[in-house]
Each structure stands twice: as C-alpha cells, then as structure tokens.
C-alpha cells in the first residue's frame, strides 16, 4: 500500500494541468538570452510556472523500474492541481488524498523551483526536440541530454497550457527507468501566458553547512553523476539529512549514529549494490541502508538505479573487522577497563 501511495504522489506531480480563471490566451514566453544552446529551458520554466498556477484534474499512470527485483511496478494516481498545490490520491478504494508541493518528489518534480532548473541547465543540455501527443493533446517535447548526447529525460509539455503531461527518465545506458504520464487529463481553461516564476538562484544554506562543519561533520558538495548538495541539516531526533540533486533527480541521505540492528529490519532483504552489502526494501522508490564506522546510512532516491549505485559507492563502507582485529580491540578494551587511570 505504501508503494502505491508513493506512486500516487509521484503521479500527481506529473499532473500539473492548469485551468485558468482568466479567459484568453497569452503569448508564449520567449527563450531567455542566457539560455544559450538550452533551447528547451524556457519551455521547462513555463511548465514549472504553469504547474503552480493552473487548475487541472486527471489520472497519471506511474511506472518505474524495481531495483534488484527486476521488472517494473506501476500505479494509477488521481491528481488535482490548484493554486500551486497538488492533491493526490491513489486510484484505489479507501485511499487517502494528500496535499503535496509539485516541486517535491511527492509531486513528481513536475514544477521544479527556479534553482532546480538552474542546476539542471548547469549539468545537462536542455533542448527542444519537436512535438508529440499525450492524451490526444498536442505537446512540445523537451529533451535533457548528457554531454555524450544521450537522453537523460524527456518531457511532453501541453501546447496550450504548458503543463507537463509526461515525464520519462533514462539511465546512463539510455534505458527507461521511470515514466509518469497522464492517461486522463482535463484542463478546463487553458492559457499560455505563464510567466516563469522568479526565485533565488540555486544556492545552499551555507550557514547551516558551516555550522555542521564546525561541529566536525564532513560531507562532499558533489556526488557522482552530477549530484550536487542542496541541503544538509541536523534533525531531531538525532540524525543528519543530506539532499543531493542534479536538477533532474533527488537523492536523500540520512545518517544515524549506531549500528544497524538487522534483526529488526522486517521487510528488508540483503542486496549487493555497487559491490557493497546493503539492505533494501521492495519499493517504488530506491531505498538502501547499511552500517559503516558506527553510523547507519540510509539512501532514499527518486533517480535511476545507476545514479543511486554511484552515490552508494561514494559513501563510507568500512569492512567488518576480522578475527584478530576484534581480538585486539577486545584486549584494548579490557586493558582500558582494568586501568584505573584510563
């Protein structure tokens, strides 16, 4: 059920249909001169703005790969967007509706913040790639490409409203890893006079980072596959949160002090990821946990599996101590206990 709830949430994000209270059609926003070769970036900015200003309803079909388990998982999610808030509900009897932000993973990252789009443009090439159709509606296609020309993501934006109707994400080998697409959509009143939302540039909370560093914590500002640190916080009750994104995906890392109580990990199973032993759950989201050096690391990600694997590989993985290491450590502890001056 939880998996379906997640899927529902993600699907809602894709659903940023807009119903404009004011009638009439406006002119499409022109490309920013600073976009350079990113000919599709202004379209994504319009889509992000439309996702927060338009009204729409529909059903999204969400499909994602199942890391380690093979195959795919899917879910249908009913979504309703209005006033910058998405209401999502899994298309099942008894499902509970939730209100989420369209710029969050729960909202399918359908209306990313201006800072997120800056990071996307910094790490990828965002180009307009023709036209298509989704649910019988004419769409503009925008591709997010890597330096080698490979497609990292593809968006279908409603021609009339600019609402994103479909979002596909691919891994480094060009394999489709997730897709969220409307199978039903209703946009009562469409307009295209959506103006890209102003917002702060992609910046981290440097003061919070400085506080953590002053307390001895060290963390990289970048992880493999273009992941950039956008948030690092100490949270209650006693864990650290690190958020990374490449402008397209979101990887969250949680660090707890202690060692992993494997006997209490119900619903988890061991799986080797990036050559390391990790505990994973069968979920629509990438979830992995392991212990190293007196800390437990947990990764949750809405990202291709190869991106998550690279992030996991870059995190600490201390090997289990051998026999003599444990004996030496035990002798050292015994000596310290027996030493009254220790």
């Amino acid at each position, binding site marked *: 059920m939880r998996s379906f709830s997640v899927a529902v949430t993600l699907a809602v994000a894709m659903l940023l249909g807009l119903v404009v209270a004011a009638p009439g059609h406006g002119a499409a926003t022109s490309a920013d001169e600073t976009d350079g070769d990113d000919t599709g970036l202004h379209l994504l900015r319009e889509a992000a703005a439309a996702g927060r200003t338009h009204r729409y309803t529909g059903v999204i079909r969400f499909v994602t790969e199942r890391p380690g388990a093979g195959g795919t998982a899917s879910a249908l999610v009913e979504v309703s967007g209005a006033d910058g808030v998405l209401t999502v509900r899994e298309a099942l009897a008894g499902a509970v509706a939730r209100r*989420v*932000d369209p*710029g*969050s*993973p729960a909202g399918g990252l359908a209306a990313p*913040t201006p*800072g*997120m789009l*800056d990071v996307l443009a910094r790490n990828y090439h965002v180009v307009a790639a023709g036209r298509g159709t989704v649910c019988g509606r004419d769409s503009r296609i925008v591709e997010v490409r890597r330096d080698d020309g490979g497609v990292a993501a593809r968006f279908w934006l409603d021609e009339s409203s600019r609402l994103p109707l479909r979002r596909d994400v691919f891994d480094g080998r060009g394999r489709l890893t997730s897709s969220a697409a409307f199978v039903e959509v209703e946009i009562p009143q469409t307009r295209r006079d959506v103006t890209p939302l102003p*917002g702060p540039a992609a*910046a981290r909370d440097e003061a919070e980072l400085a*506080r953590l560093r002053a*307390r*001895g914590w*060290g*963390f*990289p*500002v*970048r*992880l493999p596959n273009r992941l950039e640190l*956008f*948030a690092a*916080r*100490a*949270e*209650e009750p006693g864990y650290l*949160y*690190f958020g990374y*994104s490449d402008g397209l995906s979101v990887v969250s*890392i*949680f*660090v*707890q*002090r*202690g*060692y992993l109580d494997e006997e*209490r990990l119900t619903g988890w199973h061991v799986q080797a990821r990036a050559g390391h032993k990790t505990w994973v*759950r069968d979920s629509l*989201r990438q*979830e992995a*946990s392991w212990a190293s*050096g*007196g*800390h*437990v*690391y947990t990764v*949750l990600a809405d990202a291709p599996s190869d991106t998550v694997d690279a992030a996991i590989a*870059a*995190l600490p993985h201390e090997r289990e*101590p051998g*026999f003599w*290491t*444990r*004996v*030496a*450590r*035990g002798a*050292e*502890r*015994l000596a310290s206990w027996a030493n009254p001056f220790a």
Partner: protein
Amino acid sequence: MRHLGERVSALVDGELSHSERERALAHLTFCADCRAEVEAVRALKNRLRSLEGPSVPADLTMSLLRMSEPGGPLPPRVNPFPDASRVFGGMPVPSMHGFAPPDNRPRGHARPRGGRARRAGYVAVGLTSAAMAFGTMFVIGGMEPAPSVVPQMERFANQHRTTIPYGPATAHATPIPTPTPTVTPTAPVVRGR
C-alpha cells in the same frame, strides 16, 4: 726383611705394635725405598690434616636432598655466579660460599611416572585457557559501543518526499540543536570521489 709395603701407612698412623715398629724402623735404616715411601705418606697426611673442612651451603644441601626425591620436574637452574667480577681466563670463578653444583642430574630419573599424561594435561589446560581468553577478547571486541538502530523509514520517506530542492525550507528544516558528532572531526560523514 721384606719391604714394608702396606705397613707403611700403619707405621705413619702409629698403628703397629712395639715389636713390629722396632723391626720396621730397623728396616728403614737400610732401605731407602721404604724410607722415601714413608716420608711421602707422612707428608700427604700432614697436608690433608692442614686443610679445613669446606662449609656446605644450605642450597647445596637442599639440592642434594631433592635429588633423592622422586618428585616433579627439575627446578630452574639458578645462576650460581651472579657476581661476574671474578673471572679467570674469561670464565667466572665461584666463591667458596657462592658455589652451586652443576645441574648434572639425569633428566630421565627426575621425570615421574605418568609424566607424558601430565604434560598432555598441562597442554590441554593451556589451550583451553588461551581459547577462553581469545574468545572473551573476541566477544568484547565485537561489542558495539554505539546504539543499535533501524532506519526511521516513515520519517525519512516523508522528509524525502516533501523536500523541495532549492525551494523554501520544509517543516523539517526548523533549526534544532545539532548533535555532537561521534567520529573524528576530520573524518568525512560521506566520502566524495
């Protein structure tokens, strides 16, 4: 008269009768060989008599007594010459009161009956003790000083879902006291490439 022979020693010791002594002395008057032999025996006895009997150290006595016992393994040999200041020809010379006998007791005689079984017993006890010691250290070395935890998945998943990258802070971003790290300050929490 025949040579004195075995009566030389008796003459020197004064053990001959009067008549025998007179005949022996008469013989010595004309026999140079017997006279020389008597003189040699008398000189030897005088020399021995002039020597004092050596005092026997207590440890020597105890060592001799232990040699007569059928007891256990040989005691460790004590360096009889702790004072190496007196040497002769590069070898330490014992003093009269610091003398200890060489440990030349036959090894086989000191080993009691059933010694092999006792040695096996010693080995077994030693191995068991070592195993217990290593086992204890292994267990203690495996004890984790940190608390046992499981991922707070409901909280983590909610925070992950609701986080808005580069957006306004969520409810989870409320400033809270920062826990003190338990790792070496310079050690990275997460290791970059």
